[in-house]
């Protein structure tokens, strides 16, 4: 991208303008995500930077909204924070409950999506797979079909079959939504997969099971893990299906946020947002490390 020495003035000007434009677009991408972090520490119930905050006066900042998050829904939030306070927090805090639901649902949905998705991806990446294109299109469709249609369909289906208001129902729905991501990431890994490795294993006398667990699995594992993380994030971020099919005690974090945004958009919502940004940063880092490891293993990356 470096500018050649012989570039004309016009080209020079354009080149720098271009870089400035790109910088602005990067700002557009990232600023909305970062802006919630300082604002969540606002001491005032406003959504803007107060004067004190701008002067970096410590009294302009506080963790009151994080505190509010913890205590919201607790039976007796005001007593001293001993073991029974924490027990109350664990059992009754609304956000804690939402977090527990999110994790339970996300965990099982991920397991289901990853297991079924990986298996299918192994089949799909075989040359002999019949009707490959058609089947692939069906399997990816939960990502493409508007979520409101999926949620509506599930609402009727679950009401009819008794799955409404059950954890199982939400888990199945979230697994369905996560599956396309698993398929995409795992098949992408398998595209670069050298089939001669499995042949070598087989020719050396390994059983198909041994070959799979000793050769295939370690190589596609990064792809499987990325797929699993995608599936988890999909479930962790999903609100529409939960709105349609979940019972009142199955509120997840996004469902709770949805209420918060519509009704009382206090900086407490920004505190949740900040926590979620931290989580997504961690997930992204994991994914990136995995991707690089996988590229290194396959000799695709400079480092």
């Amino acid at each position, binding site marked *: 991208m470096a500018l050649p020495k012989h570039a004309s003035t016009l080209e020079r000007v354009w080149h720098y303008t271009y870089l400035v434009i790109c910088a602005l677009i990067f700002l557009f991408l990232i600023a909305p995500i970062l802006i919630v972090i300082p604002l969540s520490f606002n001491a005032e119930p406003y959504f803007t930077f107060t004067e004190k905050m701008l002067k970096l006066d410590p009294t302009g900042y506080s963790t009151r909204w994080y505190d509010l998050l913890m205590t919201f829904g607790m039976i007796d939030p005001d007593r001293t924070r001993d073991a029974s306070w924490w027990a109350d927090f664990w059992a009754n805090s609304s956000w804690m409950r939402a977090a527990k639901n999110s994790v339970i649902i996300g965990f099982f949905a991920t397991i289901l999506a990853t297991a079924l998705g990986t298996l299918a991806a192994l089949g799909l990446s075989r040359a002999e797979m019949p009707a490959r294109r058609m089947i692939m299109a069906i399997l990816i469709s939960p990502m493409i079909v508007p979520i409101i249609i999926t949620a509506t369909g599930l609402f009727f289906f679950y009401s009819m079959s008794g799955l409404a208001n059950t954890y*199982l129902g939400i888990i199945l729905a979230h697994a369905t939504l996560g599956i396309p991501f698993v398929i995409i990431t795992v098949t992408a890994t398998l595209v670069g997969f050298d089939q001669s490795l499995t042949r070598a294993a087989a020719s050396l006398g390994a059983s198909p099971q041994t070959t799979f667990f000793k050769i295939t699995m370690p190589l596609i594992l990064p792809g499987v893990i990325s797929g699993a993380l995608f599936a988890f994030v999909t479930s962790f971020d999903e609100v529409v299906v939960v709105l349609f099919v979940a019972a009142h005690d199955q509120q997840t974090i996004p469902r709770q946020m949805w209420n918060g945004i519509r009704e009382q958009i206090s900086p407490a919502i920004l505190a949740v947002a900040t926590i979620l940004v931290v989580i997504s940063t961690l997930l992204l880092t994991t994914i990136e490390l995995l991707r690089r490891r996988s590229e290194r293993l396959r000799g695709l990356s400079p480092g």
Partner: protein
Amino acid sequence: MKKTLILTTALAGFAFAATAQEVNVMSWGGAYTKSQVEAYGKPFTAETGIKVNWIDADNPATPIKAQVEAGNVTIDVADVEYSDAIRLCDEGLLEEIDHSMLPPAPDGTPAEEDFLEGALTDCAVANIVWSTVMAYNTDNVNGQPTSIADFFDTEKFPGKRGLRKSAKATLEMALMADGVPAGEVYDMLETKEGVDRAFAKLDTIKDDIIWWEAGAQPPQLLADGEVVMSTAYNGRIFNAAVAEGQPFEIVWDGQILDYDLFVVPKGAPNKDNAMKFIAFATDTQRLADQASWISYGPARRSSGALVGKYVDGKTEMAPHMPTSEAALKNALVNNFEFWADRDTDLNERFNAWLSN
């Protein structure tokens, strides 16, 4: 740990029907639900041991229909507006309520006579009288709005307006602001010209409207300065002003009064507990207690005398009630029959208007 987790998850699906001693009550959230939790829920649990699960909804009437028709009822008691109570009952979506189970007034007056007129229907028992009012934030309005017409006057009072995203109450207010006396509003809305006139009035401020759906939104919009005036449920404004010290004022002119009633959806999983809850919550003392948490009038005559001060111990509740003399000067009582019949129709037109 993991095993228990799996087991809990597997069981949670079935646990719903199995736990007997609870009742799921769906109400409007925010300050209103809080008043019901304090006045009805906590004492009810203390006395009967039945756990009350409070569920919030923008308007509890809509999930009822969805749940009953889909054959998947999870709510035991819902708090709905009058026209919805009538409509849902007409459609066979509610359990009938036996009025004889309701306790008499302390002086022995039977419940049937003690409740305000119309507060008891085949399927519903009223608990409060509330109203839709206009309110403003004194910090953000220059001058003092005094009438519903001022709400529609963006020249005199520039700034955004908050309105509930539904035809009900909005159309009536538009007509009253256009100079139609309260007594003639519903006659006028029966005609196409009347409806056209209401929409024409709304057209004049359409670009300045921010629509709200949940009762907790208007106080928030007013506090954030996103709107300078908003329609709101009067109790929400009272709570924001008195409990949180927000500089809000209510303009009673053009207020629209309505009941909120308890109903039991057909096929409620804990029907017996639901009936127990309703009988308990609508006795004289509970209704009076609720009025000390939020400025909604009790639906029993005998509760009136027991209404005292707000829970802070300082604020007299009487002048904040929508039924106070000052508030009733130019007030409209919601015509439940009109809305029971015309709700679908007018909301359809309202939606078309909104998206144009």
